């Protein structure tokens, strides 16, 4: 992935070569790890230290939903906790809107956490002794916003996450899905630029998870918040993310769009993840089509255009299957009313298998 300087300037969150090793003499261990290129298991054996994050560099653009995906223990939570400095890096820097988070004083850091970054947790982490409304207004209360404004904003948030009528209830009265909406509302109450979501939906039932994913996607389209979304579920990452970073043992093994990840897995680890994923909505006509000339040379002359099913380069395989059903002729991909490529039935089937 190449990003030029002008792009980089609009990045909201930037991590440069972030390392985190848990242990008393982490820096020493890190040098040794760099020099001998030790694996996570070797570090654990030799130093009894845990490598949490290993040389991670990412940049997340404004309004982007950036997914971080990996198995449990791969360092996802540790990585995002660097962004609001709940964890100090062993090495590397984190920039938020160009400000180096590591250089902030205690008060500035709290200011930034309260105003610029909202966080949602897998286990909700709501305060059990406070009502839903007071939970949502928690970050405002910490900034000494007056009670009236607080409850006004909280009520607006309650509406936003469709919890009307639950403002005076305690979290324990709510179902898991509803609790996580409270968590989401709390994170957004201070109107932060950035949302950190650490497996927000992982603890929920599949059906409720689906609903919340859709709701969040709608919200994020209107609110345009830069989001780092952690999940251990590739399906969810693909649904939510404009880009996905895949982590393993603290390292990022691949960053790319969902389509890129699915069609060009960087290694066996990613390929294993991708193997069970339905490609219907991830692969598009421009990836599976072949040029018209090549088709005419290798197969036969193209029939008259109006006898063929037609589609555009940005249609996904699902759409292609739809137009192709009951047709003998191959699909003609049209761009600006000109044929730019051909998708045969074979190519379509191969595409569904993920082989392009």
């Amino acid at each position, binding site marked *: 992935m190449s990003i030029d300087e002008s792009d980089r300037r609009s990045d909201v969150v930037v991590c440069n070569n972030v390392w985190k090793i848990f242990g008393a003499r982490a820096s020493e261990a890190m040098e040794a790890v760099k020099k001998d290129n030790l694996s996570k298991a070797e570090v654990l054996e030799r130093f009894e230290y845990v490598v949490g994050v290993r040389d991670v560099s990412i940049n997340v653009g404004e309004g982007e939903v950036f997914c971080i995906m990996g198995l449990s223990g791969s360092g996802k939570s540790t990585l995002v906790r660097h962004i609001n400095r709940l964890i100090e890096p062993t090495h590397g820097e984190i920039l938020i809107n160009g400000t180096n988070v590591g250089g902030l004083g*205690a008060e500035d850091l*709290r200011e*930034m*956490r309260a105003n610029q970054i909202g966080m949602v947790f897998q286990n909700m*982490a709501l*305060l059990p*002794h406070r009502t839903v409304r007071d939970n949502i207004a928690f970050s405002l209360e*910490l900034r000494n916003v007056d009670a009236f404004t607080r409850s006004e904003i909280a009520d607006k948030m309650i509406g936003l996450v469709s919890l009307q009528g639950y403002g005076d209830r305690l979290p324990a009265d709510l179902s898991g899905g509803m609790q996580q909406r409270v968590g989401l509302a709390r994170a957004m109450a201070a109107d932060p630029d950035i949302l*950190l979501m650490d497996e927000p939906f992982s603890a929920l039932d599949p059906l409720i998870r689906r609903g919340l994913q859709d709701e969040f996607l709608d919200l994020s389209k209107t609110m345009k918040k830069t989001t780092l979304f952690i999940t251990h579920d590739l399906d969810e990452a693909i649904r939510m993310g404009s880009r996905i970073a895949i982590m393993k043992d603290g390292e990022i093994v691949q960053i790319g769009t969902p389509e890129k990840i699915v069609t060009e897995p960087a290694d066996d680890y990613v390929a294993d993840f991708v193997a069970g994923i339905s490609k219907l909505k991830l692969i598009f006509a421009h990836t599976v089509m072949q040029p018209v000339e090549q088709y005419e040379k290798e197969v036969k002359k193209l029939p008259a255009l109006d006898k063929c099913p037609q589609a555009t380069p940005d249609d996904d395989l699902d759409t292609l299957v739809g137009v192709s059903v009951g047709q003998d002729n191959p699909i003609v991909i049209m761009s600006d009313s000109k044929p730019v490529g051909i998708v045969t039935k074979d190519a379509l089937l191969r595409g569904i298998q993920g082989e392009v």
Partner: protein
Amino acid sequence: MSQDDLKLFKEFAGQNGDYYADKFLQIQKSILPRTHINYAALLGSFVWAGLRGNWLLFTIGFVIDLVAMVNLALFFKYAEKASEYIGQDDKIYLLDRYDGWSSNHLLMAVLTFVLGRILFAWFADRFYANQYARWRTDEKTPSSFVLSRLVIVAVVSALILPLTIYRSTQFVPEQRACIKQDRLIESGEQVPFKDRFNCAVMGEFPTLIWIDRPDTINYRKDDSGQYVEIRTPAREGAPPFNLNKYMSQTIDDGIQYATIFYGSIFDQITAFLNSMLNAIEAVFVGTPWPVTMLVLVFIAYKMAGRRTAIFAAASLFYLAIFDFWQTAMDTMSLVVASTIICTIVGLPLGIWVGKSDRGNSITTPILDVMQTIPSFVYLLPAIAFFSIGKPPAILATVIFAMPPMVRLTALGIKHVPENTKEAALAFGANPRQLLTKVELPLALPSIMAGMNQVVMMSLAMVVIAAFIGAGGMGFIVVEALNNAETGRGLLAGFGIALLAMMIDSVVQKANKIRD
């Protein structure tokens, strides 16, 4: 049962492997006859267990045989004593007594030996099978039959058996006789070895450390009003102190020094406690009884509901009708004063202990000690520094009742989930906000449980503190004890119990309702 298992059985047992393999198999199949006993164990007892490396059975067998032998020795000792009185008609009652004791011990000796051995032999194979099971999971468990273990058996027996049996054949020397003996030895006289040995080994642990008597220290005001120290050396030839006496004297001197030169500090503390207590007593004692009673019942109703309020009303009525009203309110004032101080001091301390590892490691041993010391011991330093009256009573009560406040506050703070705290930090909480808005509210149930314990322990201690002039209900009991007024004492005791149950049920119900 596979061949491998049988081989393991044999490998474990070593000597006589076939026998044990057979018995273990029967035990695993639950077909060992109920009456099965191990004859080797019956004969060999603890020696058998030692050779087999089963130190639990070794101890059991050893104790059985030791008890039997001690009883046998006692039989001989008293039989000999009895024979001294044969033919002395005026001492016939002594003859009867020693005769009776000796035949009792003989019976005990025989019974212990026979029954104990049989029991031992019955348990032997069953315990041995347990040892086998442990050996399967932990190869370091002793196994097989090892002759060198005889050395351990011999050493243990040599250390314990002769001295114990010798001790039971001898009459324990009086402490006075031993002190006299010490003097004789010092003055160079010959004392038979047997007597010296008896004094050194039986009875009291011998005094190893003798320390010269320290000077007696007193203080007197000189003409300018300053205190001067007057040291009086010990009388020539006075016997030296042992460690106990010496340390007691040193502590007393220290306390005397502190009360004379830092007396103003203690006076200020006393004054502060007195004024606090006065304010509280003004509420409980100074208010006319109908008002106090109604307010107390109303508080009970508000905090704990109707049933508790009825119980409180009945208890208060009992106290009033038996003329305990003023005294009970005195006691209540002391309890409230102690509880307030315990909370003011214990809560911050508990927070510190809950949040800092160092606080935890410093306070835990101190709290452990505070909780194990018998309550009335706290009265001593209180009297030493503050003389008698209500202020020292409050202080002793505070020290006695504070540990649960610290402990349970710390426990509550420690149990606040990490991720809840993390969430608060992620939204920009500063340390003070974290404490007041997250940690304390979540720790509140635990803190309230601590308060409840503080109140109950305060009440218990305030009653005991009547010994040093705390007054209140406890005083009536103390008085009744001194004058053998059983009835009055019981009535007051029942009143104290009602007071305790009343407070306890109000506080507990209040906690439950709030949850």
